[in-house]
């Protein structure tokens, strides 16, 4: 256990000390000394961000429900707390037992965002755990990672002993069981990793593979170094969500977090097939929970947390087959308790707003829509299945319902984009404004404000655009200038993302093992919390790029050939490469692919749960 007196001194000097104390409702206080396997769940961002992540609540309860295992949490300390910890020799600790993370058997990081990787390194350092996997012997914990970004594990290959690819509900317990067996004998790190890699599906151990490169920096081959270790890693997926483990409790933070409410997961996967969206491809196929299951889970969660809002959280919650029935059942059930229901994302149709009108106890004044691209041509390219009349209908309906603040989300730098498409962003925004003011005077309620936000497109692995070269930073700035000049109306606020941040995201997300060195350098030079605009420092990143000798253009801006071996090709995420190539070609031709609830497009997932369900 860390020195509690020192911790107390540290807590008196930092902002939001309750980030670092634990003791929340529904937190566990199992005796870690009696646990056979001690697992530290590490989230590489601040407490408020990590606690809003549903996966944390699932894995935390899943592991702690097992008698032999204990799971405790640790988060990245904010700058002020890190200073205090280093000053007072406080190692990174878990919130529950205030135990040094170094004393745990396994440290598991969840990878939600590429720009949190420097935090991961910093947390290992604060835990006094050697950062490189090869420097850690049996006296240190096994360091593992999972989550959406683990689908391209290569940039972290030098740091992480073992990756878990796909959904973790089943594989995590299999892994802890295996660890328990090994710990009962004479524990040997390599033997454990070998057993995990060969016996558990979805486990990837980077040290069992060697990568060779061509002169042009592309990959020439991957060689498996140990016998029986799989060449292709198949992602794990839970087949029946009704039978899947679902926690009856959620940790209830004392301090305000990003999502201060119950998260009710309706389904996994998404059927729209938007070509830019990684989640839409790696979480296929769609698997829904039944209304009965959801009502039962919601009741237990309300009782155990005291939250007054249930958020229906899935990739596109309005798609839930029995949404109407579910919402009415929830509202009926919790009417007395004044518990409300909220929808985090809206489809561009009036039905969504109708539901929203019914469920939101607190009337929101602003609504957000994501047309993603400014022209119909480009929306077809990215397979975003909405057209201008959908948006018009939704917006006019929203105005009629009294909403006066609208937010529109777009991307720039999408494949085939032209100046006309960019001007389309401006045109669509002005159209929305005109629709508000062209109504009869008596209907114009509220103070109209439109916010148009444009982000810089980052091509992601496992999407049809994984071969596409990202626009250069200069090009992004040119496009921003162009847009800025066209937005002159004080009623329309034009926002854009920092192209330099998107550039770093692009380098890391499609990186190979050589990116490990860049991350190490960036961390050594002081980068952390890079996803926070207040902390992001591009100058340091550039120095790290120069000193690590990587060619940033090679990773971010280069358009790849279809026959190139991509760093993440050895992972089977579901849809085949053939499917992605087909989708990319269709995109370039401006052809759309229908929602796979309507027709099976043959993406190549084996034993797809969808077959026979919707079509």
């Amino acid at each position, binding site marked *: 256990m860390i020195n509690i*007196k020192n911790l*107390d*001194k540290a*807590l*008196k*000097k930092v902002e*939001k*000390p*309750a980030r670092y*104390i*634990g*003791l929340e*409702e529904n937190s566990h206080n199992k005796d870690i000394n009696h646990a056979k396997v001690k697992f530290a769940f590490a989230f590489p961002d601040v407490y408020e961000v990590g606690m809003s992540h549903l996966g944390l609540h699932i894995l935390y309860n899943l592991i702690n429900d097992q008698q032999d295992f204990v799971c405790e949490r640790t988060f990245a300390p904010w700058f002020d707390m890190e200073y205090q910890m280093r000053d007072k020799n406080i190692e990174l600790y878990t919130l529950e037992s205030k135990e040094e993370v170094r004393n745990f058997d396994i440290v598991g990081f969840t990878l939600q965002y590429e720009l949190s990787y420097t935090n991961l390194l910093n947390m290992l350092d604060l835990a006094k755990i050697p950062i490189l996997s090869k420097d850690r012997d049996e006296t240190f914990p096994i360091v593992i990672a999972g989550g959406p970004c683990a689908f391209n594990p290569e940039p972290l290959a030098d740091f992480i002993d073992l990756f878990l690819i796909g959904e973790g509900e089943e594989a995590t317990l299999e892994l802890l069981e295996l660890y328990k067996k090994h710990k009962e004998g004479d524990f040997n790190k390599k033997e454990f990793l070998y057993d995990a890699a060969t016996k558990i599906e979805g486990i990837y151990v980077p040290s069992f593979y060697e990568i060779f490169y061509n002169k042009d920096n592309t990959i020439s081959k991957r060689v498996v170094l140990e016998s029986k270790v799989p060449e292709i890693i198949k992602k794990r997926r839970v087949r029946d969500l009704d039978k899947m483990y679902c926690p009856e409790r959620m940790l*209830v933070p*004392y*301090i*305000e977090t990003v999502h201060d409410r119950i998260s009710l997961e309706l389904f996994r996967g998404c059927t729209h097939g938007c070509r830019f969206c990684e989640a839409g491809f790696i979480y296929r196929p769609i698997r829904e929970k039944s209304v009965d299951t959801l009502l039962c889970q919601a009741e237990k969660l309300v*009782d*155990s*947390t*005291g*939250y*007054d809002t249930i958020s229906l959280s899935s990739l596109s919650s309005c798609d839930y087959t029995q949404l109407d029935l579910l919402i009415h059942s929830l509202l009926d059930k919790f009417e007395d*308790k*004044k*518990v409300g229901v909220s929808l985090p994302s809206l489809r561009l149709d009036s039905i969504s707003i109708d539901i929203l009108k019914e469920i939101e*106890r*607190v*009337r929101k004044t602003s609504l957000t829509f994501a047309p993603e691209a400014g022209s119909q041509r480009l929306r077809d390219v990215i397979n975003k299945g909405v057209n201008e009349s959908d948006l018009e209908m939704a917006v006019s309906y929203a105005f009629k319902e009294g909403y006066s603040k609208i937010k529109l989300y777009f991307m720039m730098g999408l494949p085939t984009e032209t100046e006309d498409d960019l001007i389309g962003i401006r045109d669509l925004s002005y159209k929305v404004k005109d629709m508000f003011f062209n109504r009869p005077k008596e209907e114009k309620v509220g103070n109209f404000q439109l916010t148009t936000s444009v982000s810089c497109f980052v091509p992601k692995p496992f999407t049809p655009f994984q071969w596409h070269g990202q626009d250069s930073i200069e090009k992004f700035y040119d496009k921003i200038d162009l847009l800025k000049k066209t937005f002159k109306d004080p009623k329309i606020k034009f926002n854009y993302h920092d192209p330099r941040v998107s550039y770093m995201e692009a380098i890391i997300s499609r990186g190979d093992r050589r990116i490990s060195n860049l991350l190490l350098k960036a961390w050594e030079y002081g980068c952390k919390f890079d996803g926070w605009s207040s902390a992001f420092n591009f100058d340091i990143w550039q120095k790290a790029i120069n000193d690590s000798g990587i060619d940033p253009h090679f990773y971010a801006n280069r358009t790849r050939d279809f026959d190139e071996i991509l760093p993440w090709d050895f992972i089977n995420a579901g849809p085949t490469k053939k499917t992605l190539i087909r989708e990319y070609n269709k995109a370039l031709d401006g052809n759309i692919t229908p929602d796979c609830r309507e027709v099976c497009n043959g993406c190549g997932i084996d034993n797809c749960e969808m077959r026979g369900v919707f079509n």
Partner: protein
Amino acid sequence: MKIRAKYTKLGYLKYLSHLDLVRLFNRSFIRADIPVRYSEGFNPHPKLSLGNPLPLGIESVCEYFDVELTENIELNEFNNRLNEVLPKWIKIIESKEIDELTPSISSTMCITEYEISADLTNPEEEIDYSCEINRLLDFSNIDIEKKKKKGKNKVTIKVNIRPFILKLSINGVYDGSIKFKSIVLTGEKGNVKPSELLEVINKNTKIKLDLDSMNARKIASYTNEFEE
């Protein structure tokens, strides 16, 4: 019905902010099925009011809140049901019914008794601690610098806190650390924090304290009528 409840704030939960406490109580009312009255309007919230905020990092065995209910409830049941769902460091000690005319907690409970301890940085020095404290209390002016918001800017102003210190005494010295008891004003008319007391002791007496090692606990609250 309106209830005034007295509760504790101990252990690490001394780091909960005022707002965190409000949220904790609101969730607890839902879980304990307490029939709380909600305000009218677009964004209804429970009719709950807390006393003056306790400085972050200070424990207390005498915090208060007032809450309005839509129906009557036995006070014992109110306490028990809430205590079942509250964390063990925050517990209702007692509660009583009050009427509409009862003045608010923050306007009446303006005098606070603290127990404060801190490590001495000069424990080997022979000092008559009580004498030092009495000497300090003989000052008619004890100025400290307080940061205040003036419009948009933060300005530092000098405040004489001597009139706000009603009592300050040594409660024991052992093992290199010293314990004080103090009664101070904590309200609109004047406000002294335990950390400020230690600061003025460090500055004006021979007693030298490690300010970071401070532990403080609020042990009593008094109304305006308090007289030494």
